[in-house]
């Protein structure tokens, strides 16, 4: 089954994606590429996970597959036909549940059937079956706002399953739930899948939780960012139910961490040297300091395995990696092969008191974040020591999307404030220097 000749559409393929590219047009500069050259094949009977950090385009890919989004390039072949718009055989489960608050559980579940023009009696019968299958019996007449998060996502699942889709798409389906609820829901879903009770042929899920992906999926595509591409494809061959503590399971998790902390080589050098800016996550300086302190102290003593660090801190990949990235960007930490290591300047920061910390941080900021250094330089040069933020935002938007530019500017504002490198007036959208005399 694995040896599929390239370029041929085999009849047992549900979905085939070839060279898909998604870019947003920009007036001034080059297109912003979100996805580049993505290939993917889906067969009946498998659960595939799309794993990546935020901004790696995995959710975009899911929307392309669902037909909600038309890619700017490449082919999407659904059951041998090019995909045009949402296909009837595809159903989607949303991160935010996307339930209609004015419809009862029953009405929410029947919505997709109604859209297909199925008669009332038949709708009721199928809805009841889906509701019972997913463990919602007794809640039929409840409104979503009366339900807990876990129950709401069960409604989301029932609504998707009731249309008997060939492919079930799930966009971070458990990330809005608390740990326990998410675990129950995962187990229930996998149990139903293993027992062959789910009326679906294949499932494709987006997640940023590495353990979740390893726990559920038969195949995991790990995405790299900027632009999003498939960095690695991994097969997980353990039978269900899987044991998180199994050393082989841990090994896969570690391997994925290693892939995900591997920096794309060409990016690092150009980004820091030239005018082109990197996208920065607005991570609070408190988090940076907190992680540095944990890292410097026992038992890690300056070097920690990321999965080991994530567990006790109750952080998920998407929370932990941006902090690590921030430290790396500021030269206070280094991410390598799934580990986070503290640097000299990071250790100096931990050992210093509040005022010295600000100075160390300011020095790190000026040395490593060209944008922050540039803002300070401009302010020093201006007689009034004021400068509009618009110009910096515009410059950022030449190389990244407006959302990312905003985020980056937000990070630079917050770090600059902490370092007392400059101040920012939100009302006027201006940077300025406080009179220090």
């Amino acid at each position: 089954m694995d040896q599929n000749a390239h370029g041929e559409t085999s009849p047992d393929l549900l979905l085939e994606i070839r060279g898909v590219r998604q870019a947003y047009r920009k007036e001034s500069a080059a297109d912003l590429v979100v996805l580049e050259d993505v290939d993917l094949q889906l067969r009946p009977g498998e659960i595939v996970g799309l794993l990546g950090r935020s901004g790696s385009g995995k959710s975009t890919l899911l929307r392309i597959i669902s037909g909600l989004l038309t890619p700017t390039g490449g082919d999407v072949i659904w059951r041998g036909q090019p995909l045009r718009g949402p296909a009837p055989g595809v159903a989607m489960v949303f991160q935010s549940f996307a339930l209609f608050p004015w419809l009862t559980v029953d009405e929410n579940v029947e919505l997709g059937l109604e859209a297909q023009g199925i008669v009332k009696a038949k709708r009721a019968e199928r809805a009841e079956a889906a509701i019972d299958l997913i463990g919602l019996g007794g809640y039929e007449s409840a409104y979503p706002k009366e339900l807990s998060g876990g129950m709401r996502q069960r409604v989301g699942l029932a609504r998707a399953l009731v249309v008997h889709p060939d492919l079930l798409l799930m966009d971070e389906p458990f990330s809005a739930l608390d740990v326990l609820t998410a675990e129950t829901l995962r187990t229930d879903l996998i149990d139903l899948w293993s027992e062959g009770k789910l009326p679906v042929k294949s499932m494709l899920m987006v997640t940023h939780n590495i353990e979740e992906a390893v726990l559920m999926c038969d195949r995991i595509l790990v995405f790299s960012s900027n632009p999003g591409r498939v960095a690695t494809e991994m097969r997980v061959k353990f039978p269900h139910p899987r044991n998180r503590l199994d050393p082989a399971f841990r090994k896969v998790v570690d391997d994925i961490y290693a892939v995900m902390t591997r920096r794309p080589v060409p990016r690092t050098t150009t980004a820091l040297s030239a005018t082109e800016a990197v996208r920065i996550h607005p991570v609070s300086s408190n988090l940076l300091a907190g992680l540095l302190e944990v890292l410097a102290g026992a038992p890690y003593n300056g070097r920690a395995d990321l999965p080991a660090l994530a567990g006790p801190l109750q952080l998920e990949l998407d929370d932990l990696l941006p902090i690590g990235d921030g430290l790396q960007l500021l030269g206070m930490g280094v991410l390598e092969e799934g580990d986070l290591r503290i640097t000299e300047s990071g250790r100096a920061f931990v050992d210093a008191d509040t005022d010295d910390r600000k100075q160390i941080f300011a020095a790190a900021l000026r040395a490593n974040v060209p944008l922050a250094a540039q803002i300070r330089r401009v302010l020093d040069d201006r007689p009034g020591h004021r400068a509009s933020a618009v110009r910096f935002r515009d410059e950022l938007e030449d190389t990244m999307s407006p959302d990312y530019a905003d985020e980056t500017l937000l990070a630079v504002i917050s770090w600059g404030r902490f370092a007392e490198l400059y101040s920012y007036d939100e009302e006027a959208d201006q940077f300025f220097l406080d009179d220090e005399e």
Partner: protein
Amino acid sequence: MSDTPFPAFASQRRLPNLFDLVAGACILAALIYVASVARGTVGPIDAPEATAISLDPANLPAYAVRTTLRMFAALAFSLLFTLTYATWAAKSRRAALILIPLLDILQSVPILGFLTFTVVFFLGLFPGQILGAELAAIFAIFTSQAWNMAFSFYQSLKTLPNDLDEATRSFGLSTWQRFWRFEVPFAMPGLVWNTMMSMSGGWFFVVASEAITVGDTTFKLPGIGSYVALALEQRSIPAVFYAILAMLVVILLYDQLLFRPLVAWSSKFRFELTASEDAEDPWMLKLLRRTRLLRAATDVIGSGFNVLTGLRLALPRRAAKERVPSKLADALFLGVMGLALLYALYLIVQFTSTSLSWSEVLEAFLLGLLTLVRVVVLMVLATIVWVPIGVWLGLRPVWGRRAQPIAQFLAAFPANLFFPIFVVLIVRGHGNPNIWLTPLMILGTQWYILFNVIAGASAFPGDLQEAAKCFRVGGWLWWRRVILPGVFPYYVTGAITASGGSWNAAIVAEVASWGDTKLEARGLGAYIANATAEGQTAKVVLGVAMMSAFVVAFNRLLWRPLYGYATRRLTLG
């Protein structure tokens, strides 16, 4: 919601109960009465009994029903307008370029100024028929209701939640299904609230538009408004009080039977997934839910509605790639619009240059300034009076809960019914009309400030209050730093409505008469009112345009920046 927990039971025993009897009898009686009264709307206008008004209070119930019917007819048209106009503006990028600014201007045009044109138009449409005059009155009310409803609907359509949008698309709902299952329900709370606000404003105009003189044409449509007009001509103070009493009953019924049940019902559509503490259902809603027959009837209507809205009607699907807007079509569209604009300008210049001079424009502008001064002074006074009272009431939950419905009720009451009382007082006391007619402008609209401030103060977070108390923030500092910023966004919302309403009221308030005595204040409102009465179209156009310009400028220069500031800096969370 308090639906029956045992649906199986309910469907088995749909026997009528006591509530059914009461509700059924009321509905039947109301239908018969409305039908008999409504027969009066068709027929020739010069038939003596058609437009003869009598001051006999026994006629008042029938007049009240006629007035109310006009109101609801206008409401039906407003809803129709909202669902089409706003949808069109929201779905078509090009149409929105024209439709939205148009709506913005229409919102600021003084409605009573329209009457001159619409009366002539509708009377011409049905010559010699009462229907023409009825339609003119209904249109006047429509213009007071439709714009903000359309705006609210448009804004809802523009802020549809992304995930639900994707859900409807991925499940393949048709355009028609999507509209009724997703877009309309999402817009419902805002739409219901704006409809209710429109109704409140509408009472003012229904009363004002029932007795109209345009040049030589005078007509009186049977209703509370024309009853009051007659009472003024005949100097009958008791009749004025009867009219006020009748209106009180009407508004009370409307408030209890419609407003409250509707608002409570629409809370089901609120877009939130957290169960908020629901206020107790109004008695009318409870009654409707308890009566078996009525429930069965609404169930039938509801499922019929569901079948109708569930039809898979769809516009032909457009190619998915058509996202990139065509520059050529845009240019063509803008070109056509530009030509239309030039032609409109040409018409305006041609029309005004023959009948108006620059000195008249200047005069209207100066009169506008006078009215502006009145509005500003009144707003300041109303703020000084009602903000502290509103804060006081709002911070005491028991009082606030009692006061808020009363303030809302007062806002709905057509203040023009009270005008005669003031006029009598001014005439008796020989007051200067330039000063003493002024308060009439804000008589009906000041309540918007009050109930919004009450709402703001009662929504003020308890922990902030405790923090202020804990740090002993008191006196003026407390007002300045704690409560005024806290209620400011609510105050601005109320003040925008109040100031807009005051401009409109100026047309009615700056000229008042009592029998043969005529009181007049200098101002743009009086200018428009007099020009309307004399049938001088050019002057009416000038006055209306000038007032619109003042209102638009006032909104753009004062209220919009204030509102922006309030939402940016002073909203919590």
